[in-house]
């Protein structure tokens, strides 16, 4: 080889130098070639190639199969999978390396026997996950990999840990060590969940059947949603009825994508509902599919929810085995550890088997979405509401609400409160009311100092703003938003700057890296925010370009914590307000 000094910035390679390199025939074609053995191993797991080739969109599913089986993705398998799927190696590698749950190893490396994930998001950090992580890294064997993980969606169980695919609530070092020692890695059973039979006995799927048979008109269903004022509950809050109207007028075939990539730190409502009443969601899904007229439905579930996936797989199979009427095509897809895939267009990319990079809009997903088709995209909870609203009418829902707001909202409350959890409360309730009435007040020894009204993205408010109604549109004047209604509560023992740094690290970790403002901005901001005294001018400049020029909501919302700290907590960062 004709290695050059890496340091020199200008390289002139003389002809003689190139000529002098060892001239030898290359025994193989260019690039890595799949070995027969690796191809056989891959084939054993993903099956033989169909006549028209493997489906490109199943790439991530295939990667999961390999990753589950070998506890890692070995390079030889990536090369072999590419050959089997008739993709180039880089097409597989760029996808595999995007998702944190795929651990790519060289062929001579050893895969960890067990991976233990310790949640390091805000609520778990407040509950001591930092020291738990250090303790486990110190105490567990060398074949056990202990790594920090972004929000596991179990903030009410902080600190949350995952051992293999088993979720551990209120984890302690001893408890995790015991599971590891017993190789107890399977997802927990969910005995309390309502199964298909019970759901149908209780009148389930009757409404969906009525709509399919035309006993209830599709228009009437949409009207109910509109009167109830149901808005998308994934964070953006787009009116659900209007979305249905838009998509159903698009040319067929139309598709539907369901977002259960509940990754916003502090949010765990979808998991909670799914784990208890999966069919209520599925019926909402079928009603939406019927009203809008979609051919196929793709459910995208975050990978961290192993228990919920097991349940949903089982219940879907049961439903498809005994369908109440001929159902549309339904596929359950598995995320792979990427918060950004909760962004609707990134999720669409991920369902297509690609890197979860948000698309530029326009065109909107409703017009050009999954596989280039008009797509109805919904959050889990939005669909979960449908049956209840249609059965009970819009009025009972719209009659709820406080402080001039209408409807009900599910808040995921965590942090320094006595009783964290999912709280179904009137829209417009204030933080103070929510904590006092629904959460048993602040935790012992803690007084309210600040709160995050909408997960990592929604900003940070001081205690003096604890009487602002919590709902869509009410927090904007204060530089915040409610998003998925993930409320994280801080006390006098906490600092807003620590919370801000925690979430900025999260954003830097989860940025897809596509656009400059977010890729560079989250990284640089993190490092500036680690400093005792903040550089207000630079941080404000970064905040402006991130907010104004990022492609998607992640980058646009990422500066919220910076601005909130500078506005409401300048004393913490030595910044003059």
């Amino acid at each position, binding site marked *: 080889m004709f290695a050059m000094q890496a340091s020199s910035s200008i390289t002139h390679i003389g002809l003689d130098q190139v000529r002098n390199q060892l001239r030898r025939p290359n*025994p193989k074609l260019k690039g890595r070639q799949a070995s027969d053995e690796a191809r056989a191993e891959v084939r054993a797991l993903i099956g033989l190639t169909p006549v028209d080739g493997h489906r490109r969109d199943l790439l991530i599913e295939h990667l999961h199969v390999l990753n589950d089986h070998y506890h890692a993705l070995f390079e030889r398998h990536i090369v072999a999978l590419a050959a089997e799927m008739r993709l180039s190696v880089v097409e597989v*590698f760029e996808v595999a390396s995007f998702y944190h749950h795929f651990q790519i190893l060289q062929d001579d490396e050893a895969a960890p026997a067990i991976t233990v994930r310790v949640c390091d998001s805000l609520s778990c950090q407040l509950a001591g996950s930092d020291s738990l992580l250090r303790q486990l890294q110190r105490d567990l064997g060398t074949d056990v990999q202990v790594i920090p993980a972004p929000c596991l969606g179990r903030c009410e169980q902080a600190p949350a840990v995952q051992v293999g695919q088993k979720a551990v609530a209120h984890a302690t070092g001893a408890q995790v060590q015991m599971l590891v020692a017993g190789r107890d890695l399977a997802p927990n059973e969910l005995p309390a969940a309502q199964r298909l039979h019970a759901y149908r006995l209780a009148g389930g799927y009757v409404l969906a059947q009525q709509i399919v048979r035309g006993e209830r008109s599709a228009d009437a269903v949409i009207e109910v949603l509109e009167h109830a004022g149901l808005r998308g509950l994934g964070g953006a809050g787009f009116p659900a009825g209007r979305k249905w109207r838009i998509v159903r007028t698009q040319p067929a075939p139309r598709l539907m994508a369901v977002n259960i990539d509940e990754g916003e730190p502090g949010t765990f409502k979808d998991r909670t509902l799914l784990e208890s009443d999966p069919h209520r969601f599925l019926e909402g899904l079928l009603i939406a599919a019927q009203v809008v007229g979609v051919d196929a439905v793709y459910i995208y579930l975050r990978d961290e929810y192993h228990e919920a996936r097991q349940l949903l797989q089982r219940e879907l199979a049961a439903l498809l085995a005994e369908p109440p009427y001929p159902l549309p095509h339904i596929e359950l897809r598995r995320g792979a550890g990427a918060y950004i895939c909760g962004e609707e267009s990134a999720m669409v990319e991920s369902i297509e088997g690609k890197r979860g990079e948000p698309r530029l809009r326009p065109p909107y997903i409703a017009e050009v979405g999954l596989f280039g088709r008009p797509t109805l995209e919904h959050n889990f909870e939005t669909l979960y509401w449908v049956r209840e609203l249609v059965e009970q009418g819009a009025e009972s829902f719209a009659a709820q609400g406080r402080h001039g707001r209408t409807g009900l909202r599910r808040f995921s409350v965590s942090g320094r409160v006595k009783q964290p959890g999912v709280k179904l409360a009137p829209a417009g309730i204030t933080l103070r009311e929510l904590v006092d009435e629904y959460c048993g007040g602040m935790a012992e020894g803690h007084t309210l100092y600040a709160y995050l009204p909408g997960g990592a993205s929604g900003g940070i408010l001081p205690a003096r703003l604890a009487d602002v109604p919590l709902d869509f549109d009410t927090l904007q004047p204060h530089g915040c938003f409610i998003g998925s209604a993930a409320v994280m509560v801080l006390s006098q023992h906490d600092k807003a700057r620590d919370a801000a740094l925690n979430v900025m690290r999260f954003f830097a970790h989860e940025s897809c890296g596509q656009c*400059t403002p977010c890729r*560079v901005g989250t990284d640089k901001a993190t490092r500036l925010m680690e400093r005792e005294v903040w550089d207000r001018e630079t941080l404000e400049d970064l905040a402006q370009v991130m907010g104004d020029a990022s492609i998607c909501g992640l980058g646009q919302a990422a500066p919220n914590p910076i601005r909130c700290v500078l506005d409401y907590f300048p004393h913490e960062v030595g910044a003059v307000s």
Partner: protein
Amino acid sequence: MSTVEFTLNGQQVQAPAGRSIFNIAKDLGIAIPHLCHKEGLPTDGNCRACMVEVQGERTLAPSCCRSAAPGMQVWTDSERAVKSQKMVLEMLLADLPEQGHKWLDDRAEAPHGELSQWAEHHAVQVRPALKELRREAVAADLSHPAMAVNLDACIQCNRCERACRDLQVNDVIGLAHRGAHTQVVFDLADPMGESSCVACGECVQACPTGALMPKSHMGPQKVDREVDSVCPFCGVGCLVTYQVRDEKIISVKGREGPANEGRLCVKGRFGMDYIHSPDRITQPLIRKPGVAKDVRLIDGHTDWREVFREATWEEALDAATQPLNALRQQHGPKSLAGFGSAKGSNEEAYLFQKLVRTGFGSNNVDHCTRLCHASSVSALLEGVGSGAVSNPVRDVEHADLIIVIGSNPTNNHPVAATWMKNAAQRGTRIVLADPRVTDIGRHAWRVLPFKADTDVALLNAMLHVIVNEDLCNEVFLRERADHVTELKVHVQAFSPEAMAPVCGIAADTIREVARAYATSKASMILWGMGVSQHVHGTDNVRCLIALASLTGQIGRPGTGLHPLRGQNNVQGASDAGLIPMMYPNYQRVSHPQAHDWFEKFWGTTLDDQPGYTVVEIMHKALADDSDPHKVHGMYIMGENPAMSDPDLNHARHALASLKHLVVQDIFLTETAWLADVVLPASAWPEKTGTVSNTDRMVQMGRQALQPPGDAKPDLWIIQQIAQRMGLDWQYAGEHAGVAAVYEEMRQAMAGSIAGIRWERLEQASSVTYPCLSEDDPGQPIVFQDHFPTSGGRVKLVPAGLIAADEQPDVDYPLVLITGRQLEHWHTGAMTRRATVLDAIEPAPTACLCGPDLQRLGLVPGDRVRVASRRGEIELSVRRDDGTPQGVVYMPFAYREAAANVLTNAALDPFGKIPEFKYCAVRVEKALAVSSGA
């Protein structure tokens, strides 16, 4: 086209609907910074340097990706927009090193190409607070011979990835990982030189900041001059711009041409320095008295001074010509023959054949078209009346289905292959029919790896399906085809079920593909030498003509027949009459009218008998002295039959037997070693002239450099020989009178290029023919309403099954298929002297599939001896599972293991093309130690 009205920077603007704000602003002279956007690449909108403010929108909008809507109010220069533009530039610049790799001009203080340029535009300075946070430096990757990867200058703009994947569809580059760790990678983050990179260099051309650079052109970008020309390698005909510094071509840029749109392949971009090789002949050479013409001289170890002495031009030209005159006098005109070259210009080809016809006095003139598409041309002339393509390659854009048969386009026509892959990305179904499954197979809808030599069986079975399933276009057949019934009856014997065991493709698959071809809105067939280089090459092409005709898949966009031409000017050289049976523009020498016309035109008597073809001339050189047509003397310009002919031991022996051989070339080729006189010629970038590509585009090549030493333009040399043979030619003007030669040729070829005056070519660089008048834009698609046959109709000719001349047997159990590889061109004279190409593929290899290697007890890298009845060579083996079992594939570019030592000189009876694609060989492990990695 509809327009929209909107407000841009407070000004009312009208613009075409759908046009991006960025482009509209550009039209109005408003500059907006941009980095990820590049003309010709799909927009991506990731860099966010081009953000503009749109009234009423929450965030800024990327102007490159946003089209104007009626009534929109847009500011490119508002405080808010400019703030983001500047911040993006500052953030990117903050992470880049102080020193860069792509200076603006020669200014080291502006080291990051387009990023530096836009930073200067907005007077952006990186603040210390951000400089302190500069990302960690990454080590340079210099593993590739041609390109340097310096990711410290990477801004993740994705242009390289889009260039690699959306344009070239080589699919090597990707962005891996995410967030701040997002990284441009090759394959599995492999060093570029070890990756599957094919070095097209499109990424280098796309990179805005110098993170990917040609090693030969780093740092200062200033050059002494840029010269527009056309690539000298394959028939695709990519337009290029040479960048010249210190009288050397230091880099080559793809230029917007109709065939390439700025794209190039490794040869065109990185293969040009053969012209600066120390092996160039710079002085005329005369064979020393008494040095025998021993074929062993070709081994490459002999010092040329032992064989030749240097001479002056006067001396050498006399020494070259006098014996030719003497032989002609003694043995008659047929004792001389000339091989011109498909690597030369149209003007050289024209003058060369004129020299042979009017000076030598016979039609014994041919060139390597005989070795590539002669059978295609004979079938096409017979069937559709024209040997050229019916539709350009880029018509694949309009095809729903394309059949690629007997062709490895990603290696041999790499830029043409990009258009096929682009079409596949948009949904066009590619059918690859080839015994070898090559790279295009990954993009194919169906792959038909039929048994070598069974083309007619496969194609007749498809015709059978089309006839028997009523898939014929009867209207087309009634109005435009002859001998339809004979063909329909003939193919009855070739049902898919009967042919499946013959060709090795399942009957159902044959049916499926035949139906798809016949019923698609537009289907096109492209083929290469896998079809033509058989003793039944003409029959193979007759079947392709029948496919297109029965289904009416011809004469429309996205349909037709396209024999992918190999050499840069094989189309033009044939057009210009560099073939023994035809004058310029395919007028038969035996046709009285044509004969008379040319006698008048050239003012001399002409032989009315067709001359001999390439392989026949070699036979005639070895003919008995009593043979009145024995060839005694030859003039070979730019051809290398001592490498390119089949059965080389025989061919070399023939060349060595000549009483007099004059070779005109830029290197001492294998053929030149056997010459009496060697005349040093000019390389392509050293002369001006035109070439015609596979798409029938006449394109202008311009001189960029002076020939080295005493080397001369070929056109000048031909005229000097002609003068000494008593011809009184007058071609005045610069570049050895090239324009005057062209204008004379234009008169002789009025039927195709009457409308392409020299001045028009100088201006346009590329004009497609037929082009019959000044205002004729050129006709890319022909046969739209008639065929140029005598009756205006296509003539269908049935083809039967003919086996290859030599079948494998116990002694020689394997089949040898020869061909080319991406880096090496033809006999390797040019490419093996190109530094980068040689570095990538330095030595000969024989490809076998894994199971065969195992069966033979071989591992990749082992040295083997490959033997046929005609000779044997030694080389190492490479594993290529695309090679079918029982087959060895070998490129023929390597002197030290010349594949043509093995090949069979059996000829197709019509095209007189040898059977390079099939002969019987034996492979054994050589005794020498393995040289594998």
